[in-house]
């Protein structure tokens, strides 16, 4: 028998966790001499109060959806993919290479090829840690951490020594051709008579991210492969007994995970910067971990959590602009969310389980 109802597990625990994180963050804001309520108002105003704010919130959310889904898919096979950052960086390289060297006539074709390239490069970067885990038992967390650093050095080399245009100081590629410009939300919403902010970077990738959420849901809960992945995640010996190959599941789950992380590049590289710059991922790979934990590894949860973190990122930028609170406050909040929803989960869970048990006994 479950100790508590499902809704408590899915909704209540994440809510309590974020509440704890919010209270601690409010104390931090108080300690540095600012007003937490005013700060929250400023964050809401700056990120949700205008289409400009929404444009940034949704832009960040798009990236976090991809990296969050990446962590979630791997997690269902009980793999902790901490390498989303590196996979997204290398995915960016894939996007940049196809967009720089193939003359596309129209952005739709470019987008399809860019998604394929991003997914392929991201999956390739996850393939080695996946193979080492599946075939040789090397801990995937450690190897993916190492691959994040290797990716950073690799990208640094490619941008400084190979892809940088002649005579440019900035370690970045050339701008992509205007043909491959992805429609921004402004351009997408004009036909509907909605005047969305022109300056905000949210773009067509948001639609792709939402489709990805749906596809991941179908994959995990509506296909045989998804069933096998979940079965393996629940019990390795049980899956083995049912004839499921651990090698196959580890490889497939990690490759899908890497492909999803890589696809983040269509948002930040193709959609926003329209060229590949150094450190283009801006830690979105790590935020994906917080998003997946917060969203309980369910695509819809990831969708909501990504928007929440998009709000935090845009709100944090506004705070840094108007108050003495630096952007790093968001890093602290993110760390607290990871701590409470991930590592200190039992601290929240144990008292709740006791409470529900006591209530049930009284009811019976």
């Amino acid at each position, binding site marked *: 028998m479950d100790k508590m109802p499902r809704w408590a597990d899915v909704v209540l625990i994440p809510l309590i966790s974020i509440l704890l994180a919010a209270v601690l963050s409010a104390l*931090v804001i108080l*300690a*540095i*001499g600012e007003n937490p309520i005013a700060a929250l108002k400023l964050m809401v105003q700056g990120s949700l109060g205008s289409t400009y704010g929404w444009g940034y919130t949704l832009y960040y959310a798009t990236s976090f959806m991809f990296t969050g889904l990446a962590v979630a898919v791997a997690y269902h096979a009980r793999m*902790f993919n*901490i390498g989303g950052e590196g996979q997204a960086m290398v995915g960016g390289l894939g996007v940049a290479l196809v967009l720089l060297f193939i003359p596309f006539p129209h952005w739709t074709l470019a987008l399809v090829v860019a998604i394929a390239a991003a997914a392929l490069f991201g999956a390739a970067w996850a393939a*080695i*840690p996946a193979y*080492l885990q599946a075939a*040789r*038992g*090397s*801990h995937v*967390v*450690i*190897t993916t*951490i*190492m*691959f994040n*650093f*290797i990716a950073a*050095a*690799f990208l*640094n*080399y490619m941008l*400084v*020594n190979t892809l940088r245009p002649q005579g440019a100081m900035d370690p970045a590629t050339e701008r992509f051709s205007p043909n491959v410009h992805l429609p921004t939300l402004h351009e997408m919403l004009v036909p509907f008579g909605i005047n969305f902010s022109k300056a905000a970077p949210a773009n067509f990738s948001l639609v792709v991210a939402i489709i990805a959420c749906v596809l991941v849901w179908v994959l995990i809960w509506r296909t045989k492969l998804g069933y096998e992945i979940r079965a393996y995640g629940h019990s390795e010996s049980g899956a083995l007994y049912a004839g499921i190959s651990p090698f196959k599941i580890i490889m497939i789950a990690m490759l899908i995970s890497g492909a999803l992380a890589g696809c983040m590049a269509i948002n930040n590289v193709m959609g926003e910067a329209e060229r590949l710059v150094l450190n283009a991922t801006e830690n979105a790979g*790590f935020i994906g*971990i917080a998003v997946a*934990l917060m969203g309980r590894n369910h695509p819809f949860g990831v969708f909501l959590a990504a928007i929440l973190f998009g709000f935090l990122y845009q709100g944090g930028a506004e705070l840094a602009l108007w108050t*003495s*609170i*630096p952007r*790093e*406050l*968001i*890093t*602290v*909040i*993110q*760390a*607290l969310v*990871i*701590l409470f929803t*991930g*590592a*200190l*989960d*039992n*601290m929240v869970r*144990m008292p709740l389980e006791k409470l529900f048990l006591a209530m049930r006994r009284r009811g019976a």
Partner: protein
Amino acid sequence: MDFLTLIQVLDSTIRLTTPLLLACLAGLYSERAGIFDIGLEGKMLAAAFFSAAVAYVSGSVWLGLGAGIVSSVVLSGLHGLASITFRGNQLISGLAVTMLAQGFTVLVAQDWFSQGGRTPSLSGGARFTGITLPFADTLAPVPFIGPIYAELISGHSILVYLAFALVPLTWWVLFRTRFGLRLRAVGENPAAVDTAGVSVTGLRFSAVIICGVLCGIAGAYLSTALQAGFVKEMTAGRGYIALAALIFAKWRPWHALWACLLFGLLQAIALRYQSINLGGIVIPVQVMDALPYILTVVILAGFVGKAIPPRAGGEPYVKER
């Protein structure tokens, strides 16, 4: 490369090895007791900030070192609370600790000093200075041995000598004392330790606290000895290189020393040369940056002697009822 350049590179190797070695030994205690720690980076970062901040305000580097150790131990305690008391995921906890330190150090630095997330630069008594070993000046003119003794071995801060002395000490503690035996046992088979009537929780917490103290010294070394003050994200991945060295050393103290010296040498070379020309083949500096990680993956893959972690590592211990 002439002899003097070689001495300079090796001297820089020793300076850069020190924080790696301290963090690596910190991780060694923790992981040998069965608590994975990917939060070495965060603990070092927190210690680097608080030691620089307190050293600046008080003017005493020793108070700074103390503050650094305390801040690192607090984070260790948090990691212990999550992974021992509440049996949470140790990897997630380590990651959260690192992020917490990354955000918190800049937040507090900005609030206290308003210099864009850094501390003012330290000088005088607020820094660890080099110690000239006896006879260094007398021996300096002697060919070959003179420069080695005077330039390479002498003239480092006390924390450098402490770090190197900790290697034999750690070996002795782990392999020649009762505490060390129990510590290793709790990382391999906690149930056996529990049956023998020794507290698993107590042992694991003491390992995690030792880890915090050593990370604290490593962080203090970074901001008060290697450099003069704290800057944002100044650990720059050293905690992860130390973790790589720990795996490279297969969780053994003497091997940890060699691994850290190797990775320190790579850093020293990368710092000095932009690219290296090896008879027509140019090795770019980025390869030097990535080499510790690549070597670790190769070792982890088990192609060159398999690295097997302590058997109970990462598993929370649940007493049977």
